[in-house]
């Protein structure tokens, strides 16, 4: 997908929880807060590597393993991921009671 396509996908997924896989192997999970010309900004949801799966649903349109590390400490607020760095986006299936 092109940068423009990722941009419009992020716009559509605004307010939703997603997992973004980058070309460098990093994986970011969070809620899409906003986007600007070049980046999508995420609110982190947790530090756990597995967060989002809850052992139930898994991913909406999943892609195979090889996840990198999740958010590290220091990302207090929403942070940006450049559209150009994105290799794939999936909606997270979260489980609430």
């Amino acid at each position, binding site marked *: 997908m092109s940068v423009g396509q990722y941009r419009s996908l992020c716009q559509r997924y605004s*307010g939703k*929880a997603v997992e973004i896989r980058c070309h460098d192997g990093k994986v970011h999970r969070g809620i899409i807060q906003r986007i600007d010309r070049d980046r999508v900004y995420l609110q*982190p949801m*947790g530090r756990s590597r597995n*967060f989002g799966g809850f052992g139930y649903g898994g991913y909406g349109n999943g892609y195979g393993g090889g996840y990198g590390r999740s958010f590290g400490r220091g990302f207090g*607020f929403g942070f940006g991921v450049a559209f150009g760095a994105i290799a794939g986006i999936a909606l997270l*299936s979260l489980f609430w*009671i």
Partner: protein
Amino acid sequence: MNYTYLECLALFGVGGAHPGGLQLTKKILAEEKINGDTTLLEVGCGTGQTAAYLAQQYGCSINVLDNNSIMVEKAQQRFSSLALSIDAKVGDTENLPYPDKHFDIALSESVISFTNVIATIPEIKRVLKRNGRLLAIETVLEQTISEKEQTQIIDFYRFPQLFTENEWLTAFRDAGFQRVDVTKYQPGLEQVDEQHAADFSLSETIDDALLEILGKHEEIMQRNKDKLGFRIFRCS
């Protein structure tokens, strides 16, 4: 600050924060006769995702209530942005601010579980019309667990009780419901899609402590996968 699980849901503004999400809600309601004359009460409306859907889909009259003022505020924002007239109040399920025999349908999406069940169910029954029905998606204890495990679950979610299916059935019958149909809900069978994924109405600042709560929730759900189950109760 120590947040509770429900406060965490409110600050993240999770829409459809119940087993099955909006997808299950739609499925359950599709089986009910609902039209423009139906009066409906949703207890524990959260950010109002379900109520907004109901108003748009059926054009019925809807009252919603939640004991969390942040949730009610976020629900009101949603309703006004969609130009829906839905009455949203801060209130307590154990003392509902509505007259007797007022509603055709009452809906609880994983809400009664978080209240004193023995006080809430008769109160919902009170505001239902004679032929009214209660639709509830709730957590049940599937198997005997150690006191330690039970305490951990109850303390984290602040459940006043953790009922088995039979205990729920007794509570509904004791409140005067004649007929209770039970359906088991098995999580994780449906694929999440854009239309049904939970939506988030985030508060401006999200404290790091909230991330810990989400992590703990995940851990407890994982660990008790076979011990906690979910039921759809239809009580009339």
